[in-house]
């Protein structure tokens, strides 16, 4: 499709350099741009995110509802609105997508867990706001928040 023959070594280097630059910029242009991982300021840039239920230190029983509140409008991704990723114990590889104000957790082992929440832009990139609470999942009577308007339960 293209000929490098006939170009001098300088021309070839220019082309290769341009190509490498484009691909490097391209590869760095996507992916997470936020702080990544826990520790992001829950009020970065004026945006806020809070886990309103369960409260930090609560004991809960599966299934339980995680409720969130944000300064940003939360809604369906295809509307361009923000949404929230809820994950556990810092493992953000698997998460619940919350396009409203709550989601139901149906599968979490007994014991102490950190419930993480990350505010996301519609394109799934981090908005730079994260928060977390610690709960204990047990078989005893916990502050079961009951069913809510959950999105895709897990």
């Amino acid at each position, binding site marked *: 499709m293209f*000929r490098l023959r006939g170009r001098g070594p300088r021309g070839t280097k220019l082309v290769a350099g341009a190509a490498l630059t*484009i691909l490097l910029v391209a590869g760095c242009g996507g992916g997470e741009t936020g702080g990544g991982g826990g520790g992001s300021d829950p009020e970065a840039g004026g945006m806020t995110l809070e886990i309103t239920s369960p409260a930090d230190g609560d004991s809960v029983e599966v299934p339980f509802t995680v409720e969130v509140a944000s300064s940003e409008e939360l809604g369906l991704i295809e509307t*361009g*609105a923000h949404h929230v990723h809820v994950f556990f114990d810092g493992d953000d*590889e*698997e998460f619940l997508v919350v396009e409203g104000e709550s989601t139901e957790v149906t599968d979490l082992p007994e014991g102490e867990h950190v419930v993480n929440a990350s505010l996301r*832009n*519609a394109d*799934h990139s981090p908005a730079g706001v994260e928060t977390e609470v610690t709960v204990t999942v047990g078989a005893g009577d916990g502050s079961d928040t009951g069913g809510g308007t959950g999105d895709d339960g897990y």
Partner: protein
Amino acid sequence: MRNPRPARWFHAGVYVTVLVLLATGWWLLLGREGSPSVLARATGMSDAELHTVTGWVLAGLTALAVLVGARGWRTFWRESVRFRRGDAAWFRRWPAAIFTGRFGHHEGRFDPGQRIANLVLVATLLALVVSGVGLVLVSGGPAFVWFAQVHRWSTYVVTPVVVGHVIIASGILPGYRGVWRAMHLGGHLRRADAERVWPAWTERTRPPR
């Protein structure tokens, strides 16, 4: 040799990125965000991240092709937009020919079906790249909604064309046996395969005795 090395490498770069994009894109489209796909687990990236990064690579390849492949693009475009009256007969014979190998005659470097596929693929892939860049740049809001619609509908159009292209190019249909060599392993086709699928091009490019 039907396609020179730069064309074959460009084609390989495009199809690897497009396959990753289709796999991750359809995974997300089907609401599987949050449940890592095989590709996500293998790369350690979320499907959304993998889709975005791979999209940038495809955008980079596209820019590279525009920068250094002008002559190739002119040939590709010229050979893809040419249509003659006899091409209709080729299409009538095509459904049987994919099994019998008895294609209708055509004069092009690309057969009439390839020419349509070329145009659809270029148009939809360009729409996907441009709308994809738009989605990342705006991240949300009203413009995001518009870019998302373009991206989604382009996906619906490009997917069956890519699937058809892969099926035909793989050579599992008897009429297209051997054509995969045009883009792999040196690009050297067997003469019989080239004569069957691209008769006029094969005759034109036959080395002088």
